[in-house]
């Protein structure tokens, strides 16, 4: 996650993006991190739908979900919506 930051002489003016938006790893904003209890999870995929950052992916090859902690901001909506209370927000 640590990249060399550019000087004011190297970047374009007016905040013209100096890197792709996918390289802005907004996951470092979070305080709490969603941790899933796989025993309780029914793979209903409600968390995938509710995640406002699209940071929970359905992986068909694994037949399971995956949290993308590079972009999860730790809002806790997934934990709140989970019908089986399988997700817990942890420090």
């Amino acid at each position, binding site marked *: 996650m640590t990249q060399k*930051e*550019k*000087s*004011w002489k190297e*970047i*374009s*003016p*007016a*905040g*013209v*993006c*100096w*890197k*792709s938006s996918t*390289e802005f790893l907004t996951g470092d904003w979070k305080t709490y991190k969603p941790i899933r209890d796989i025993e309780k999870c029914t793979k209903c995929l409600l968390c995938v739908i509710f995640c406002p950052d699209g940071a929970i992916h359905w992986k068909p090859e694994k037949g399971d979900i995956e949290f993308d902690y590079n972009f999860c901001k730790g809002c806790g909506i997934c934990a709140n919506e989970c019908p089986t209370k399988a997700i817990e927000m942890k420090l």
Partner: protein
Amino acid sequence: MKNVAKQEVLALNGDEAAAYAAKQSDVDIVAAYPITPQTIIVEKFSEYVANGDVETEFVCTESEHSALTACLAASVTGARTFTASASAGLALMHEMLFVTSGCRAPVVMAIANRALSAPLNIHGDHSDTMAERDSGWIQIYVENAQEVYDSVIQAFRIGENASVLLPVIVGLDGFTLSHSLENVQVLSDDIVKKFVGTRQIPNVTTHEGKSVPFRLDPEKPMSMGPVAFPNYYFEFKRQQEEAMRNALNVVQQVNAEYAQLTGRSYGDGLLDLYCLEDAEIAIACLGSTAGTVKTVVDELREEGVKAGLLRIRTFRPFPVEEIAKALGKVRAVAVMDKSMSFGGNGGPVFHEVRHVLYDLPTHPHIVNYVYGLGGRDTSPDQIRNIYRDLQKIVQAKRVEALINYVGLRE
């Protein structure tokens, strides 16, 4: 003056001169909202549009905040953009002033300088633009209607220069200039169009390393002014400071080029020096007051008093080295401020001129005169009194009262 372009004399007030200059400058978009004493600029320009004199798109907005937002949006697509405002209207634009300079959009805006409420006052002083001193706009203050015309034309060239890319305010004193009819020499449409040229768009590098024109274009998408957090915001602000420094040269270049075309120049474009070479006492001021001061300087010179004037034409960027050079040998300077910095121990122009003198090995005595607030007239006699005070300061070798109020009832 030989080889200057043919010109015609028109009777124009300051507002009309601004509108006329914008009309000739091949402007793509004007988005504006009327406010006294700027209204004539917008009215006049809308007449040009209605009569088919220009191909400009004219956008009537519901507020000044929207007017500048529309200008900014148009400007970042590569359009040449002009607007005008004053007082409360400029204050309502406050947020967008920073967005415009931050997006490096070279919008040109004429401001008919006017006092701010309360109490309500529609007359001229510099409170409106001085409150926007740090908004990242170039600020040029003019002396007469002729200079309004010349400066609006020059402003497009200055702001659009690739090394600058900053918005420009041309400040003309409300009513004193905005509503006073003068003889103004104007160039032909063709000559102005050639002088301003079409807006050149420099290339910038995208995150993919591609070099593309610096404008919003659906065919070559890019983001401008998106979020920049503590790790990058500071760098963008430093770039704006550099652009301001570059503007010092560009203002001078454009002033010189315009002088070749018209035979008219305003000092070096930054400072207009009057009888300052051998002056012992001097006034420093902005705008139309300089006209009155020049008359008084002429009278004093006839009486053998070595009086001079420093008119600061370009207030942002502030010509630090040039002012140090101009005032370095003077013995006493009076700085005139047509606005207040409440609690600031003097007005904004005073602060900045005094700040320049600090670094000189020996510096003149310096004193502040706040004057003309809310459009109060300032007479030649009052100016004469200021020079008299300066003579006393030179004799006594000290300043009694640092901050003085001209024509205020005590």
